[in-house]
């Protein structure tokens, strides 16, 4: 039994088998930091397969669940060696009036499988709800998706409310969705625009390191 086999279980979305094996490996003395590194490589591979559609949404979702299962098992061991690194906390949703949710769901998955903690607010979400949820979570990022020109102003409203509440600098606001653009992000003062889900983890990470 090895880390490669653990990878395989995660890739195949076998949560229970993956958890059992992770437990065993850790008890046998495998370094949890090595294990997390292996898991990161696995998820990068799974993400890559998904971006080429060699696997589909349900499969990457199962792999993500298996990964969460393994992380749960690893938690006490990781703490011993100094804790696990969460890349960032984000609340994400589709803005008010907009029912297009598939893009947001993919972004959520990609972020989760890349080590972000994500709170999904769903779709048709009021601007104020984004903020309240971000406060409750202690989020680093607010992610707002808009698929229609008619709902893009709701992204701007999130930023306006943050300003009005005097808490604009506490959150990085990230926007996306087909009709949005870098130009729109600049215009409304968003911190980041992502054209797709694939680029999101790296761009978000860069933002926190600035």
């Amino acid at each position: 039994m090895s880390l490669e086999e653990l990878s395989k279980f995660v890739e195949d979305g076998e949560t229970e088998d993956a958890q059992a094996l992770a437990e065993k490996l850790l008890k046998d003395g495998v370094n949890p930091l090595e294990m997390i590194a292996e898991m990161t490589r696995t998820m990068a591979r799974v993400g890559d397969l998904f971006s080429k559609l060699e696997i589909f949404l349900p499969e990457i979702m199962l792999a993500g669940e298996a990964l969460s299962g393994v992380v749960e098992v690893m938690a006490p061991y990781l703490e011993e060696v100094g804790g696990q690194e969460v890349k960032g906390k984000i609340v994400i949703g589709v803005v008010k009036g907009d029912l297009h949710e598939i893009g947001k769901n993919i972004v959520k998955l990609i972020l989760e499988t890349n080590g972000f903690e994500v709170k999904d607010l769903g779709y048709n979400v009021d601007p104020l709800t984004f903020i309240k949820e971000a406060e409750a979570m202690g989020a680093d990022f607010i992610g707002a998706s808009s698929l229609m020109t008619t709902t893009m102003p709701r992204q701007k409203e999130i930023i306006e409310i943050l300003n009005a509440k005097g808490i604009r600098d506490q959150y990085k606001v990230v926007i996306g969705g087909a009709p949005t653009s870098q130009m729109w992000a600049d215009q409304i003062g968003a911190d980041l625009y992502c054209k797709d889900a694939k680029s999101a983890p790296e761009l978000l990470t860069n933002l926190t390191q600035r």
Partner: protein
Amino acid sequence: MTTAYRHWEILERSQTGPFMDEDDFLPKHFTPTLKKLIKKYDIKYDPENPCPTDDAMADRIWQAAWELFRDVGYYNTDSHRLIQVTDEEIREALYMAHDQYWVGAGKDAVLWKHRQIEDMDPPFCIMSPDITCDEQYHQSICMAYLKEPLLDGICGPILEKTFGHLIESSGPSEISGCIQHITNQKLAARLLGRPGTFMVAVGTAEHDSGQIAVSDQEWGVQKSDARLVGSLTEFKTADTLLNRSLHYAQYGCFTGNLTGAIYGGWCGGSEGTAVTTVAYSLIGLVIHGAVFNQHFPFHLNYGSNTTRELLWSIAMAGQALARNSRLLHTSNGFANAGPMTEMLFRETAVHAMVSTVTGWHLWEMASTRNKYKNRATPLEARIGMEVGHAVARQGLSRAEVNDISKKLLAKYEDQAADAPIGCEYHECYDVAKAVPTQEHYDMYRRVKDEIADMGIEFPF
């Protein structure tokens, strides 16, 4: 006869049906059921044949789709409950559905009839850019589509602004934009001398309120026209959507169900996309009382359906529906490339020929991944409809279409990911006259000749 008489019982179930957490619905209920059915019915994608000839598999896909709808139900995201139906209700609805309807009004009315596989009757042709446009081009674009000879129905472009004001979702500007949309479209039809043309309207309406605001026999969407109600991907609805189907039925216009099963998403691959598409036709019929179903299955990454994995789904779903029901369904093309590119003309031609020979009616064409303002024109829709008419009149077989589509695919398939975005409407159309520029027309003519050389006999 639509199934509107069952509306109240169906609606009641969205309050009383079994509860389910929305987070569980797709991963734990929809996808596992779909996967099981694909296995049970031995449904297999064949990349070699974008337009397969497989009656037995078509029937198995039909069966799988039926069971998918019956076993999964339809999820109301507002009540968090499943609307479930029985075999008997599905059978009843299929029995009651007419296989033909007169749509449009007066001299412009057209009889829209169910088609068979390899049917020699041409498809019913709905032309639509499927995108938003600048306010100043809206009237011209409506005109330009209405100038198309093969157009049986029109769905006009979507407005982003109304009198210079950005249309904001569910606000007064949405209502105003919706009224402006239908006014432009009806005026264009009147000026062109085809005032009774069948319309599917209005795409500018994002909410039930926007649709309700344009229901008017004199100046608005008439009873001889149709409206769409969308399904949320996959198998989900909401009260704002159910409001529409009820209103359409009570107002008395035709209802169409708008669905796009996503390849790569919860449906998985081509097999699941085909099964889900067929199931959506049953959902449209039974839940929404839809007279026709408007399907646009598309590729998660490309936002198109002109590559082989999607063509296969379209071809098989069409065959399943044609062989097993009397329903009306339109195949909505989504292309990678933009206007005035040879690639777009080829993509539309392939989408239209595969759809036509497998029993679909046509709805062309969402160009440029359905993403960019002003980037769709009637000329690509024209080539699609001309191909559809030719394929039917000529009596081409699925195998013949399969061969021709493979030749055309070879010319564009490797560019799907980075297709050219082409031109905007005003760069390849004379806006004042609503006709294509010479350069644009010449390109269309060139590709049409190329396709004719492959064995398509255009009627004119």
